């Protein structure tokens, strides 16, 4: 057993030959790394019988056929070799929705539906609020759009089916269940920082607990123990208030911070710096930032499900056991969570974007 940092960082560099001894991460308030002998020697459940094993997928063949017809494979490389994302077919005449931020700035877009490749793809519009792009392919044969659910009640514990991996010819399913309340996902962090850590003290005031070296806050003279009252005139009640404010700022911008020190009020201008991404423990347990969608917060309302997608397998439809589309996968959020835009909102988005 070991808890030192060197071992923790090695977690993400395991090669196949080291797989017998996989470092483990403990899930709670502390982080441990332990080694344990795993797998076949002890006769675990065969891989094809696990929840996302081939033989379990077989029971979902009708769903696979729907994905075969009504999901799109989206490529951004010139030769249409490497799948970048999935899309959801929403009209007979070639409208497809996908995740906007993943195709942003790509000069080559092509799309495969069934086994047909479409290399003429128009980007008709983008909805920033939902991170959705509307694509259009020209087709003589009418496409088969997904059947959108009219039932707004997505029950927790119900099976959901998404696009898994794919070949040029054949789509595959990936399985999960609805795992939490359908809800709004707020911003979790800003791209710029003041360079302080806060804690809420006993009187519910935001007290500076730590000041980072060489960041704006230290240069402006903010000290540990200062109580932050407002930023740019906005009073700070909740952490989100500050995040909302900082979201609109760029590195180098200044924020006027009003604070209380020893019963005296001070006003300091703090220059913002870019956030140096330090992986959180839960991002680490999710396989690192690379495994997750870059845009995975700030959605007005999402279905939360436990299907193990990757950031390149979102964009496709989310089906229920009846094969009805109850949403569209929009972000891989963590090891345990994938977000989908619910059918109700999807219907509104489609109506608005295609009109």
């Amino acid at each position, binding site marked *: 057993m070991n808890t030192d940092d060197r071992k923790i960082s090695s977690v993400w560099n395991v090669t196949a030959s080291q797989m017998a001894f996989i470092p483990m991460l403990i*899930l709670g*308030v502390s982080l441990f790394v332990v080694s344990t002998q795993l797998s076949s020697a002890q006769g675990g*459940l065969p891989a094809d019988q696990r929840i996302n094993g081939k033989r379990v997928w077989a029971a979902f063949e009708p769903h696979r056929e729907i994905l075969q017809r009504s999901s799109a494979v989206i490529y951004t490389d010139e030769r249409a070799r490497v799948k970048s994302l999935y899309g959801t077919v929403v009209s007979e005449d070639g409208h497809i929705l996908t995740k906007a931020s993943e195709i942003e700035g790509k000069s080559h877009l092509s799309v495969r539906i069934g086994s047909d490749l479409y290399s003429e793809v128009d980007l008709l519009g983008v909805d920033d609020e939902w991170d959705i792009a509307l694509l259009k392919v020209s087709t003589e044969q009418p496409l088969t759009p997904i059947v959108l659910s009219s039932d707004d009640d997505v029950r927790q514990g119900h099976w959901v089916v998404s696009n898994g991996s794919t070949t040029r010819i054949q789509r595959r399913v990936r399985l999960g269940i609805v795992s939490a309340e359908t809800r709004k996902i707020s911003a979790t962090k800003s791209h710029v920082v003041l360079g302080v850590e806060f804690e809420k003290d006993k009187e519910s005031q935001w007290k500076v607990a730590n000041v980072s070296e060489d960041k704006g806050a230290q240069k402006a003279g903010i000290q540990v123990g200062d109580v932050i009252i407002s930023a740019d005139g906005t009073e700070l009640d909740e952490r989100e208030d500050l995040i909302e404010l900082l979201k609109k700022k760029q590195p180098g911008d200044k924020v006027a911070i009003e604070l209380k020190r020893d019963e005296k009020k001070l006003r300091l201008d703090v220059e913002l710096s870019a956030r140096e991404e330090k992986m959180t423990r839960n991002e680490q*347990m999710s396989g690192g930032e690379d495994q997750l969608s870059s845009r995975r917060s700030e959605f007005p309302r999402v279905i939360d499900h436990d299907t193990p997608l990757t950031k390149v397998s979102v964009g496709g439809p989310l089906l229920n056991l009846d094969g009805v589309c109850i949403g569209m996968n929009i972000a891989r959020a963590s090891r345990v969570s994938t977000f989908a835009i619910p059918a109700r909102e999807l219907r509104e988005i489609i109506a608005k974007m295609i009109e």
Partner: protein
Amino acid sequence: MHQSCYLPLRYLCRQLWRILCCRFIVTGCVLVAGNLCAGAFMFNQQEVPKSKADLVAIQNALVENLEACRMATVSIRIGEGFGSGVIVSPEGLILTAAHVTAEVNEEMTVILNDGSEHKALSMGLHSESDAAMMRIIDEGEYPYVEINKDNDYRLGHWVFALGHSGGFDLERGAVVRLGRIVMENDSTLHTDCKVIGGDSGGPLFGMSGELIGIHSRVSASLEQNMHVPMREYLKHWDALKGNEFLGDGPFAERPVKGSGFLGFASTDTDEGLLIGEVLEDGPAANAGIETGDVILELEGEALTDKEHFQSILKEKTRGEEVELLIMRNGEQKKLTVKLGEK
């Protein structure tokens, strides 16, 4: 981890025990609790679901039991950290992971699914298997789940995990994940129910809603999620209830002698130990000790000097309570201080 040290004899005994258990369980199921027997589900007897009807059966079992299981799943807050737990008695007895509570007899906060917060105390823990117990202090009648005491969960059985992943979130609630038991050994159940930080200590259920395990740790693979099986709790039940610290790690560190900490500066005087600066929010300050107090006795022993004081303290560990007799403004006063960690 521990696997290398099995003796063949021990293995044989275990197999024999399992056979006996199975016999007993089969009888038990028929006679007493048919609905609590994991094997009663058709889908648990199939290698894989074959039809939509099989999938519906899994979904129905999950939906039917989810609400009650969710109500009993709690978030545990310790300082800035979060774990999970599950209530197993109406009075508020909670099972969780040893690396969540980390200490015996510590105060922590439990948050129920509806957002209500309750003071709780950690009880015993087993630092080798990661099992731990705690209880809500506030009197009340709490939602709880039944423990699977029959040890009849098997490889391939369908299971679901609940927990407050990443900490408590009122709008989201406890998060549920579906999977199967993919591996099993003495002290650990492995499933492909994906769990993450904050889920630690949360419950793993069989499809009839009976508690079979507690989340402990994961590997980088999404299919390796490890849980402490109920048998580990049942084996040590009385010791856990009796606030015992069992085993020697790695999931919790046994407090060592001399690790206790009071949090003040002092100087020798003729009457006793004169308290100088008292650390803000430290153990002494929290117990009401003030600058200018003079300590006369520690644990009933009259103090000769500072060295004497430290020699008594050296035998104590963090979390232990010590009794002080002090003199303040000419009056003697007894105070109890719970030692902090150095």
